[in-house]
């Protein structure tokens, strides 16, 4: 029901009575101003999103249908780059290495992070120092981390072989074909475990205390509390961590480039490393690099959907 200005009580002297059209116009303007202001605040982020994500993805789609180089002339080749992908020598090695890397690093990161988080959550004094120390490797850029590990894995004077020699063993070629991928995965665990540990600490601190008090009164052991309280209550956050850590794991590149250059042979050549190789280390292969990138994007998308589906099912349709 609209308000009629004619039946409205007289406004106090000195205040203007507005006609309904004027009132509507003003509130429309106010709404518009609010909308514009909202979009203005959103604009920088939206612009960045378009420039740094949407356009590159569209560019990748465009490049994937062409042959030629980044700075040279290109020509349309249709789906040839995609059709030729299975024929690339070493493609299966790159896919296998990437999956093995993710299979080693993701479980270790998440189990390690959860264990650290459970310990950190119990520390009452000086917890911030421990949290900083745990988080510190996250602050180290990938290239620097790889250089640090280059020294640690040195056969002659590295820390790891120092320990091995101290224990009476023979020096190990850590970056040899047999161990290099595992070393890369462990390096990834070292870099990322702190990030997820803090993530989990925040979640553990937020868990309802009364449930634990009740469980203690019922005589539940620490393991039982973990098994039947902590893990189920943290399920959502753990599922999120599994999805994101897997996505990151499939994108491993910088450490592989600095530490092993994808070698020896193709022992640490990952999918992204192969993309880089075609993009920056080869002549006129940007179309192939883009095609591999798109396949990886779609694969990660599908994997994420499958993971979400599985995890949702376990939560009972939640």
């Amino acid at each position, binding site marked *: 029901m609209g308000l009629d200005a004619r039946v409205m009580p007289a406004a106090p002297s000195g205040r203007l009575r507005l006609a309904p059209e004027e009132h509507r116009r003003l509130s429309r303007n106010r709404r518009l101003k609010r909308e514009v202001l909202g979009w203005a605040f959103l604009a920088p982020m939206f612009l960045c999103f378009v420039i740094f994500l949407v356009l590159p993805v569209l560019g990748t789609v465009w490049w994937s249908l062409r042959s030629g*180089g*980044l*700075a*040279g002339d290109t020509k349309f080749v249709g789906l040839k780059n995609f059709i*030729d992908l299975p*024929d*690339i*020598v*070493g493609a299966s090695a790159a896919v296998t290495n990437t999956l093995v890397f993710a299979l080693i690093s993701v479980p270790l990161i998440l189990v390690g992070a959860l264990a650290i988080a459970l310990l950190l959550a119990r520390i009452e004094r000086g917890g911030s120092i421990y949290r900083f120390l745990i988080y510190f490797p996250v602050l180290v850029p990938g290239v620097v981390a790889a250089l640090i590990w*280059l020294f640690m894995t*040195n*056969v*002659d004077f590295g820390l790891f072989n120092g320990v091995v020699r101290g224990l009476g063993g*023979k020096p190990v*070629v*850590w*970056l*040899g*074909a*047999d161990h*290099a991928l595992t070393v890369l995965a462990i390096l990834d665990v070292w870099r990322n475990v702190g990030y997820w540990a803090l993530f989990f600490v925040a979640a553990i601190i937020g868990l309802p205390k009364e449930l634990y008090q009740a469980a203690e009164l019922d005589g539940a052991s620490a393991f039982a509390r973990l098994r039947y309280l902590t893990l189920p209550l943290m399920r959502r956050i753990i599922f999120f961590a599994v999805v994101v850590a897997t996505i990151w794991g499939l994108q491993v590149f910088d450490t592989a*480039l600095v530490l*092993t*250059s*994808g*070698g*020896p*042979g*193709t*022992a640490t*050549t990952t999918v992204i490393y192969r993309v880089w*190789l075609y*993009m*920056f*280390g*080869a*002549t*006129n*292969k940007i179309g192939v690099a883009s095609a591999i990138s798109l396949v990886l994007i779609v694969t990660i998308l599908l994997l994420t959907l499958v993971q979400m589906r599985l995890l949702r099912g376990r939560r009972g349709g939640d």
Partner: protein
Amino acid sequence: MNQRIHRQISALSEAHHEARLSRRGFVMGLLQLGLSTAAVASIAAGFRPAYAAAKSLKGHVRFLVGPWSEGEVAHHKHIAEAFNVLHPDVTFDFRLYQWGTAAQEIGASVAGGGHDIYMTTESSYPDYQAGTRFADLTARINDPAFAAEKAKYLYWERTESYGPKLLGLPISWHVEDALFVNMDKVKEAGHDASFIDSWDGFVDCIAKMTKEGETYGLGIGIQLGGYGEWYQRLRSAGGSYLTPDLKKPNVNLPDVVKVTEQMADLFKRGIAPPLGTYGYDAAPAAFAAGKLAILSSDLAGTTVLPKKMPFDWKLLPYPPGPVSQVNFNDVTYYMVNAKSPDQDLMWEVISFWTNGANDAYWADNSGTYPARIDAPQNGYGTNAVPQLAEALPLFEKHAVGLENFPQWATVEGLAEAEIQNCYTGKSTPAEAVANVEKIVIHEVGL
């Protein structure tokens, strides 16, 4: 000369002011001076080479160069200082690219006009030949006035084989896989420098120099992903990535499989350290420390070895293959961006940068060989290790370059990785060679 003319004009004007010279005499004097100056200038111009600066140079020159040694930029600044003595109004900026991404860094920069002068390697030359982004220097290089200078540069035949255009002036030629040999250990093993004359002698010497837990006989596979290492063996076995007409692969030959087996055998026998033991940067130190009796690497390794080594050492080529002796090397050039507005200035700069003295200076400090025949007379060898000059005749013999197709560098990178898989036991030599052939077919698009 300018100062002399100025002094003479001042003398004339003073004499006229002091009434020692009539107005007519003053004007006649100026006229005579002008005529004689013009005559001298025209005679001098006859002697001036066409490639020499015709005017006072001015401008800003941006270099994009490769990191040959730790002092790369400092070496260019040194040459720039010498240039500024002649042309003080020219300023310079030097940027480094990375070897692993050189082709794309150069490609993107030259397309966007990011730099004026580029240090490029021969592996990209066939690709640049097909494009138009680098200035065509053919007319300048083939100018009769430049003929005497041109004759002092090496490898024109090879450069001209890539196509009709001459795109750059050579600065160096680089041996990609030389053997850094600890001669003390060779002698201890009962051999001398002739151990490289045959593969059997080579392997015998390496095996005898290997002491478990102490010294490996030969460090191979550490040269930037193996660049040029197996390729040299491929050529010595009569193979190549493509046949001379560039129409078919020429990789999967019995002799090629044989040399690959020979290389893989070094790892199987434990006389070469497993791949991954030493990286490109750490290997020279391992050689200097006696942990590697022989190091297979490019000549840039000479810039990081200590000046005084605790043992006698030499640079030697690889032994001959079943078909021939092959010493693979590649040429480095300076090229000019076609978009640079002052092409005359750029030509002046690259011809100065590659003249006898500067080429000698740069190569001497970069652990490589100069691309000029007059470099030794201009001081080459004063800073570099003496082993380089000593080995020069060995590497000049049987010198072979890369093949003339644009994907050569891409194929080389992928092929060496595939061959390394066989060194680590992940594939047999026959499988690895077959895979290299597939790489050639796929990358070249045969």
